[in-house]
């Protein structure tokens, strides 16, 4: 069987102008530009030597950081902009959804916009008519079908837009980030529809930052980095590589500059914090080791307290582990390694930061603000079930001084 899409040595070059920061050229600049040197232009390859093939019925997830070239690749595939080098052989009609609701006009009614948008997306009038009831039904806006679009809420507009796109009958669908529409319920509906499309034997190229969505929709993945293909393969392998590459977190923090920290007396201070690894699964074991040091020789109050806070990306404090709540007495010793551990993290996918707090003499001594962070990658327990669950309450933790 011949592949439905063959991408051969595709590259795309842009020229970046450096000096003037103008959104577009004006004739005057062009005229005056003749007399200036043109050395300010720099070549930039948004895509370089990209090769891959897609088989009929395959669903391919394209992932990569911002600026990796995903959007440029999609633009070339959808023929919006031509490649600078290489070529693409396509054996089917491509429909691209780089945005939902392209061509929607606020003055037209919902009904009129369905026809307009459908037509822009490449549907024949007959196709639109055939699917019209299904589109309206899916969008859930039948009551407002003859109201101008400008009176719709933004959610309704998005739903209508997705509904039109969902009924495209092209052999190859290119989808970019369109899942991020509507409320949780509609998102679920969209995901269902996308899954249906992907499993109906059509070829789907899917670009998203939502790794869970990519994973559930696509069998294969393509990882782009700086305009080049870094890995093409099974979606799990690609996601693993992407996740491990993509984590910017410190697992160890040595605080030589403790004086910079504003909070606390600093008679004693936190010397180092170590969480050993930066990527966890939701049900992984977790351990944090803390070392302390003494600033004032005179500090002799032996009893201290330590606390560890875990924050999610929105600065919500999801965990607080504190010796205040344990019966154990803890004493200061600069040779000690203080460790908190959790049997299961029970956190969902995302980026988390850690704060460490130290008390001595019944006074705040030091607070290390989120210098250590880690990432929860894909796991098995919460995936796609309910995005609203951030963590479970953790009842017990172990603490030891050694």
């Amino acid at each position, binding site marked *: 069987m011949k592949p439905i899409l063959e991408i051969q040595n595709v590259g795309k070059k842009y020229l970046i102008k450096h000096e003037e920061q103008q959104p*577009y050229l004006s004739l005057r600049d062009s005229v005056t530009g003749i007399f200036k040197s043109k050395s300010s232009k720099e070549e930039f390859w948004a895509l370089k030597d990209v090769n891959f093939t897609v088989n009929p019925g395959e669903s391919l997830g394209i992932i990569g950081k911002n600026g990796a070239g995903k959007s440029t690749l999609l633009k070339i595939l959808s023929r*919006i902009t*031509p490649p600078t080098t*290489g070529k693409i052989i*396509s*054996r089917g009609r491509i429909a691209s959804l780089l945005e939902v609701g392209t061509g929607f*006009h606020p003055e037209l009614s919902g009904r009129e916009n369905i026809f307009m948008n459908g037509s822009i997306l490449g549907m024949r*009038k007959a196709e639109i008519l055939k699917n019209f009831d299904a589109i309206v039904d899916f969008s859930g806006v039948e009551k407002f079908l003859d109201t101008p679009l400008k009176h719709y809420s933004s959610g309704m507009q998005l739903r209508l837009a997705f509904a039109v796109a969902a009924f495209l009958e092209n052999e190859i669908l290119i989808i970019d980030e369109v899942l991020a529409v509507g409320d949780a319920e509609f998102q679920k509906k969209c995901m269902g529809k996308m899954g249906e499309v992907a499993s109906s034997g059509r070829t789907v190229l899917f670009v998203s930052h939502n790794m869970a969505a990519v994973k559930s929709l696509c069998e294969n993945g393509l990882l782009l980095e700086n305009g080049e293909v870094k890995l093409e393969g099974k979606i799990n392998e690609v996601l693993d590589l992407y996740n491990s590459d993509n984590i910017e977190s410190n697992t160890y923090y040595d605080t030589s500059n403790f004086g910079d920290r504003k909070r606390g007396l600093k008679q004693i201070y936190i010397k180092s914090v170590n969480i050993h690894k930066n990527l966890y699964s939701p049900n992984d074991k977790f351990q944090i080791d803390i070392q302390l040091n003494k600033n004032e020789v005179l500090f002799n109050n032996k009893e201290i307290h330590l606390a560890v806070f875990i924050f999610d990306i929105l600065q919500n404090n999801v965990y607080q582990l504190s010796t205040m709540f344990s019966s154990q007495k803890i004493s200061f010793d600069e040779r000690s390694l203080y460790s908190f551990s959790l049997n299961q993290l029970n956190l969902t996918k995302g980026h988390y930061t850690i704060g460490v707090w130290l008390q001595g003499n019944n006074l705040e001594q030091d607070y290390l603000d989120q210098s250590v962070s880690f990432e929860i990658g894909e796991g098995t327990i919460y995936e796609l079930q309910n995005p609203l669950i951030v963590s479970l309450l953790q009842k017990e933790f172990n603490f030891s001084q050694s």
Partner: protein
Amino acid sequence: MIEYEIKPQNKFSFGFKELARYYELLYYFTWRDVKVKYKQTVLGLLWAVLQPIFMTLVFTFFLGAAISQQTKLEIPYSLFAFSGLLIWTLFSAGLSNASNSMVNNANIIKKIYFPRLIIPISAILATFIDFAVTLVLFVILLLAYQVEVQWINFLLMPLAILFATLASLGLGMFLAAVNVKYRDVRYILPFFIQGLLFLSPVMFPISITKNVWALKVLQFNPVAGSLEFVRAVFGSYIIDWQTVFYSSITTVILFLFGLFYFRKTEAYFADLA
């Protein structure tokens, strides 16, 4: 099985075949422009005729007598001026719509592929409704003035429309493409159209000038031919075929050049817009 290649542009084609496949989209774009144009206006389609009526009144009042006398015009000046504005409005509205069309639809161009020519063409087709309304008023005026009319020459009207449209499409495609790169077009355009009006035999007949060069300018004017065809309906009017010939040369050149330039640059619209 459809099989096609996406690769750097090297071969030039006018792309008519592809355009023909997308006739439905052309229809929808035109339909949208027509629908949207007079939304939220009180007077609606009346606006289509108010402008030429107003211009006719102004010119008739201030210059009508002088022009009639100097050129020995045999028909009422207001009718003559209105016939000119009928074509001029078709040309200038089309030109102005087409020139701004690519920039106005930049968000669509950047997201979806379709033959780009659809956009300026539909922008021009959308002005046909205005033209139709003005044409009806023209017929009413002909009857009201009770002048002698060669009704048979209304058969030339499609030719008049075709020539004016080709001219506005040619210039419009060129300016639309330039506008994507240089937004100056937006500001030059009203000025340019206004200036062109006075270089066209719209408000006065060609016979107004005795200067050979000025005469050539008027004859080579892209709308001069269309104006001849429209004015052929007046009872005693004789078509100046030389003007028609010269004018159509300009029109054809404008059209081919505009189309060529547009097709040559369209691949990069999405990068520039």
